[in-house]
């Protein structure tokens, strides 16, 4: 069985689906294991760890930072709020893709979320993009359905899961309180 656990370690972390409203309220982050290469996670208020996210929405703003290294800060909007996304030279693929994208456009992004402290002491969650693609509206709508479903799964999940317990302790907020955000997101889809 040791063989099995060794293989497991290289299993890629799934890209979690989370609405902007929930991601921006997340601030607890932790590292699994002790060595440098162990993955870091942020804990979502609905009780799931996430090391990578897949998001989709409208790219509304693209800001190139001054300085030597090319670095973009972009804003991506979903029906519940704004994702803050950064694209730097460590992700050449994403940087290359972004250079030819105009605002506004529908995009999907795969990236790693991180928690940063803003100048005024508030926590800020930002996603470091690994790739960014221009998509059409149907992909964004599919994403809203997918994210609504997975968020409801988290809200309605049984309570014996350790991450679930931890989220309750840290965020002190009922999971059910996220349900209105899911409704909002679903209501934004015009049939």
């Amino acid at each position: 069985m040791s063989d099995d656990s060794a293989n497991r370690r290289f299993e890629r972390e799934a890209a979690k689906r989370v609405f902007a409203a929930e991601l921006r309220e997340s601030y607890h982050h932790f590292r699994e294991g002790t060595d440098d290469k162990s993955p870091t996670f942020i804990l979502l208020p609905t009780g799931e760890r996430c090391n990578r996210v897949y998001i989709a929405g409208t790219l509304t703003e693209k800001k190139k930072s001054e300085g030597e290294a090319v670095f973009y800060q972009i804003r991506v909007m979903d029906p519940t709020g704004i994702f803050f996304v950064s694209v730097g030279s460590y992700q050449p693929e994403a940087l290359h893709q972004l250079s030819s994208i105009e605002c506004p456009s529908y995009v999907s992004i795969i990236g790693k979320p991180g928690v940063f402290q803003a100048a005024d002491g508030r926590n800020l969650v930002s996603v470091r993009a690994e790739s960014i693609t221009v998509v059409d509206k149907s992909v964004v709508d599919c994403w809203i359905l997918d994210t609504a479903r997975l968020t409801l799964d988290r809200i309605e999940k049984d309570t014996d899961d350790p991450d679930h317990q931890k989220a309750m302790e840290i965020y002190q907020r009922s999971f059910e309180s996220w349900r209105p955000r899911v409704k909002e997101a679903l209501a934004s889809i015009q049939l």
Partner: protein
Amino acid sequence: MELKEIADRISEKFAAAGHPIDRAKLEEKIIRYVEEFSVPPTEAERAITGDYARQYGMEIPSPGSSRQDTGSVSLISDIQAEQWVTIEGQVVTLIPSRSPSVAQNGVISDSSGAIRFTVWSKANAPVMEQGKWYRVESAVADEYNGQVSLKIHSGTTITDISPELIPEPVITPISDIKPKQWITVEGKITTTFPPRSPSIAQTAVLADNTGTVRVTVWASANAMELEQGQWYRLELVETDEFNGQLSIKVHSGTKITPLSRDEIPQVEKTPLSQVSPGIFTVEAKVVAVERPAVDQILQRGILADETGAIKFVIRNTPGAAPLEENQWYEISGAVIDRFRGALSLQVPPGSAKPVMEDRSIRPNIVPITQVVPGVVCLRAKMFQEYEGTSDRILQNGLLGDETGTIRFIIWKDEDAIQLVPDMVYGIYYASVDEFNNRLSVSLNGATIVPDENATIHVKPPSEEVKGAMVHLSPGSGLIKRCPVEGCGRVLSRQNYCPVHEIQPNYVYDLRIKGWLDDGQKTYDTIISREGVEELTGLSLASAQEMAENNPLGLDTVFYHVNELVLGRYLVCRGKTFDNRLFAYNCEFRKFDPGMHAELVNRAEGEAHE
């Protein structure tokens, strides 16, 4: 028009700083954001202002968060912490205050939900009475331990709502019950259970023609005992949810009224395909009966009408009588339950009236992919036989039709016969169960008619993964394979096979290697040439042409495929092993309006099984 105002604000702002803006271009930009991409106007204004500011090297201060306006009446279910709100609701419970600084404690409810409230002594508020309706202006919502509650302070105004404005009490159908509300329901007590704790007087199941719900009667309610088989109206019960299971609580403020025979709602006849847990009247034919295996059961069997079939059971209680096979009955007030995903119908004593007229039923044959737990009729081929795993099993394997396959099982009994491989059968009234998310149809007791001349082209079993393509690995697109027979390994750029060394007469192939991610699990995915061609519309021949006519060679194809597929939703069919997926059939996932409707219902917190 709002968009004009935004344009005015932006152009004034920049004109004041000495940067006139092309009005037409600006308006076009705003329309593009707001109308085409449905970005909210405030966000569009922000984005566009920022854009121009960067262009002219100006600093734009970020606006502070705006304060919630307090004028309009909020729905209780929408209240969030840190808000000032005005609500209109009914005080459904008062809880004795345990502190001198608190004047009153209780729960107030409207049609959307209920919330706890606290009235501070310092508020000098009028005393509220249980059962009465009030308008509460400028209360503050706050949160403690994840629970939002309302605080009534000296700035809050409480006024009575005049009787003519109070909404009529409505009877909520059981299927519409949502948690954390105070409602009125009507229904029949189908089962009662002894109390499990001293604080509970009784637990029971209440049913109407839309569904069933568990009832808990608190000991402190001092309520009358609910009798099995009797109909009641329960006014002001609290609804609750635990582990996804809805329940209603009878407390001291609940009014219980037994309904007389005339008041019992008339239940119309419902086709069997449309029944769900609850109380129904059906007209159906007994198509199978079974010897009871236990003393408590008088009879088991299957009822069918033109739309479908259901298992029935008659308990061995006084007055119970068995039904006759092949006879039609009208059964009023039948109790429908769900067990392991399958519906069953309980016939209460005296509820079945024979119907003299005999109609013939054409069984409703269901495609295998549409089978759900319950009783089904199929037309299928014996597709595959499994090795016996148990002494009790006569035969098991897969049945198939044009849509898919399903597991079947035949238990050993004196009437059971084996199916012949590749023979097509009409299978009538077989029962389908669900185990570990897998359906299985049991053929014992079903009518099985072989059709020796028929053939069916069975769709072989395959798995489907729906997910987003989150990464494409090198080795996707056009590749070269080793031509040695039985090898087919992918060659390096220098046409080198790890086993057969340099192979200049390589063969081209097309594939996608990458990660398909469903949000829970990531599949190490390989999509075959057929799959890639179908998905991208790029054939192997045109990929080859693309690579040969482009200085980037094979990389061109990679970039092309990457651009089409990355970051998009796919539906892939094929085989999975652990977290690997070999897909031979792929398409882009389309928006599914049915799924949308289902999720909207689910988000509303409607009862789900």
